[in-house]
């Protein structure tokens, strides 16, 4: 058993990728792309304070989000403010160790009031994009994801298809979904079923 095996694509994601490639037409206005395991780190603090933002700024090298449920990013490192005292750092796997070291150092400096947790193992990730992406999401998520209510860089914890997810709206019609690894299979079945209905409704 080798530690580097941790960055291998999850089996569900691999299966999902194969299924997606087989069934999604190129012109569907809807692309569903299972992502290889992302580097995910949770940064939590015991109390909301300016110190938390300062720690994040120092560790990441860019400004963390100033509004709850939003995200900022630089060079494929994304900082998502997902609950009052909780940020998710979403990066390429290669950047995870460096980011972990930086955040852990900041947490130590905060004398036990902050905690960094490796969360890469906890999630499978899917990229949903295209003109119909929001429409597909609307079949399983009760939130208002229109640009007026959820502009690009919105990041939040919610439920999709009754599964807890972290939803990150990168651009107007591009969403990244992080789903609990134990439930990703269920979500994939749901998405496959929804897409089948979706395609038939749109005459494909």
């Amino acid at each position, binding site marked *: 058993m080798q530690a580097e095996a941790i960055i291998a694509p999850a089996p569900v994601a691999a299966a999902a990728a194969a299924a997606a490639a087989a069934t999604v037409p190129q012109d569907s206005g809807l692309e569903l792309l299972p992502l290889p395991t992302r580097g995910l780190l949770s940064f939590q603090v015991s109390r909301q304070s300016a110190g938390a933002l300062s720690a994040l700024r120092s560790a990441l090298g860019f400004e963390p989000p100033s509004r709850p449920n939003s995200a900022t990013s630089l060079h494929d490192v994304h900082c998502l403010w997902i609950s009052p005292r909780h940020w998710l750092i979403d990066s390429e796997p290669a950047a995870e160790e460096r980011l972990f070291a930086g955040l852990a150092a900041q947490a130590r400096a905060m004398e*036990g009031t902050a905690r960094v947790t490796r969360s890469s193992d906890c999630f499978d990730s899917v990229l949903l994009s295209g003109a119909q992406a929001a429409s597909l999401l609307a079949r399983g998520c009760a939130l208002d994801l229109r640009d007026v209510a959820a502009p690009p860089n919105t990041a939040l914890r919610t439920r999709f298809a009754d599964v807890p997810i972290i939803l990150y709206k990168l651009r107007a019609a591009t969403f990244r979904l992080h789903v609990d690894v134990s439930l990703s299979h269920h979500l994939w079945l749901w998405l496959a079923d929804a897409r089948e209905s979706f395609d038939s409704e749109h005459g494909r």
Partner: protein
Amino acid sequence: MQNSHRLESGGCIDRTKLLSFRFDGRRLSGFQGDTLASALLANGIKVVGRSFKLHRPRGITGLGEEDTGGLVQLIDDARSTPNVRATQTELVEGLVARSVNCWPGPRWDLAGGLSLLSRFLPAGFYYKTFKWPSWHFYEPLIRRLAGLGRAPDGPDPDRYEREYLHCEVLVVGGGTAGMTAAAAAAARGADVILVEQNRVSPACGGAYPRSSSPSLRIFEFACAFGYYEDNLVAVSRRARGGRIAERLCLIRAHEVVLATGAIERPMIFPGNDRPGVMLASAARGYLERYGVVPGRRAALVTNNDDAYDTAVHLQRAGVSVAAIIDSRDTPASDAARSAAAAGIAVHTGSSILGTSGWHALRSITVARRGESRGRRIDCDLLCTSGGWAPTLHLYSQSGGKLAFDEALGAFVPGEATQRVRAVGRAQGATLPRTGGNTWSGDVGAWTERARRHAFVDLMSDVAVTDIAVAAQEGYVSVEHLKRYTTLGMSPDQGKTSNLNGLALLAAFTGRSPGAVGNTKFRPPYVPVTLGAFAGRARGILFSKVRRLPTHAVQDESGARMMELSGWLRPAHYAAKGSLSSTEAEVLAVRHRVGLMDYSPIGKIEISGTDAARFLERIYAAPVASLPVGRARYGLMLNENGVIVDDGIVARLAERRFFLTVTSGHAELMVDWLEEWQQCAWPDLDVVITPLTTHLAALLVSGPLARTVLSALKLDLPLDAGRFPHMAVREGALDGVPVRVLRTGFSGEVSFEIYLPWRHGATLWREIRGAGAAYELELFGTDAMLMLRLEKGFIHVGLDTDSTTVPDDIDMGRLHQRKSESFIGMQALARPHSKAAERLQLVGFEPVGSGDTLAEGAQVPCSHGAGRQGSITSSGVSPTLNRPIAIGMLTSGRSRYGEIVPVHHDGRRSRARVRAPCFVDPNNERLRDAG
């Protein structure tokens, strides 16, 4: 003759597209653009079905959702949909429909004689009869007779969809007012959704000017049926081809505009339910929209001017209008002039004494006010108009108040409680005024027979006499009236019956209708298919089930998977030899070693400067005194001192703890901890980190567990001296960080190995490989439940209930050592929590037959009434080779050795009470010398 009642021209139908359909086996035809109702009327079909209670003939009475008689069963291959309104069913080629609540058919119904017994079946008769010998004696027959339509008995072949939508303005209703409001809002740049339950089309040959604004979305065949908090409106969108039969849209709008129009009230008179009696607006609608004349010779009965226009329109279409019967003495001069110009006789100050016709209407009897004998007028269509009432079901559901408008004789929108407003006819301002009641004269003086044959709610067979009986028996609240008589229930939901019903109640109780008030309307406004509510949650997607990190390798291990606490887990593995699989697995753990994927166990990390203080308040066990590297069993209680969860709390560092909670409560307990921290103790510096699906957990249990693990590249000492029972260590396994807890839920030396989720399957294989030489067995949840039963360890929720406090399971000593306050402490100090006669955890051994005691079996009280305990967990112990059980028993701990009766499902047996631990009561196997 096909389409015998169709005009040569007119209507919004496409006469070039002839559609054939079947009704009760008859082959009929209609045109594209027809509804099933218009096609039936065009073919001269008057009797469509039978009524709910009395099996009286029913025909089409309305044009849309207000119709009370045109319920049919739609049949399409494997589909069979009951109680569909013919008025809302678009005619399609090959449609097959059947009448409901009749046999063999609607014209000749075997149960039709029930109508003759109506005097014995008044409102609430079922509350007063069928007492002897019991209701259940009569129930099967009544169930067969009652009800509308038949539920399909096969799987539903259709697909359904659910959709969440958001907009700034939601307009309900696609008439003039709705379209105008939607276009105006869209022109302002608002994001607008308009829903219309039929087509958005005002009249034949015309169309509303459609806004080209991309911000306006129009959903046709979409009915808003429910209005909830925060401007959430539920809309059912019916199929328009494609694979989705029905779509449930949950629309949340910043503002809602209700352009729901108004519904015409029927007049009340004896025989008003006979097929051929129809709302005047419906008759005119069939004429204008479908080119259908519902009758050849018509009469109209009214209390307002609006019906006069209908009479004139019918006359112009070639229908012979025999008379207008107006309950008022003086109709408006314009109305009278138009009738006179058309040559229509008007009977003012008159009413209908009765109707006649075997199945459908043939004639009416008309009399002037005060006269007891009238004159007969032949007609096969009677249009009835008692004025108009705004359609305010959704407004009422939104929480909006309704105010009674005396001039209108109806309720209009009052104070709103959400951002909603009614416009157009739904507002009431533009509706025609009425000239009095919808019934004639003093209804209190009507004969019993007249009351019994004058129907208020045609769908529920509620007649005037039922309202009178309810009022007489004291049901003077409109809500009580509804429940006692079923007025306004059924698919109708009071659309045409509510106002007449409460006006009658007002008359019978000497009050004004405004003082009586209205019932609060409930969703759904129209029937919605259950499949639409289920949406995609069916079959494999019915509920989400979590998968283990070793899921992919469980198949090759021969696992028999089952769902437990939301996880798909191995219940047991393939049997070997003469033993059952569970027996073999239990014995392997007791005598050698077993391996289990333990990952579903809830895992939470608590860190921060106040972590110990926080947990001291959470657990009914001392935590602050726990040394680093050690673990302790703990109970979590609610404010009532009741056990809500149990598990291990392990101290990883001075300010860092690792908690395990039961797998079914993993998410719940994280939320519970967060709630206490955020709401009760925000001053504590604590970080709560859920780790359940961060970490895989593999459990290696048995006397050889240490030996097997020693073969792995684990950088931790495992001997008992350096890794004792209830200790925790962090290290690495072949470079992967691991956390190891030494526990003993099975009663044997056990190591729980926690490591990153994606490494779970790899470690699983490695442990299997290392254990092969020691005959390691995989074990599932069945074996684990037996192992803990042999030890007498509780399973929270199975062996405890919502009254169990720690002392009931002999765990009172845990909190008695605490000096700090904790959740539930005050409740435990109450005398009731310490009473000697409480239910206490005990063991049971069957006496006599030796049969296994059933889980759920009751221990009855010796005096016969009530129970003194129950069996909560039971089975045949592979270790002891005999049945054992645990359960709760009043004052149980003081009754060891006593023999008690045990009853289950009619079987009676006996059991000896004993201590709950059956194996290794001194825990010597757990604390092995290593």
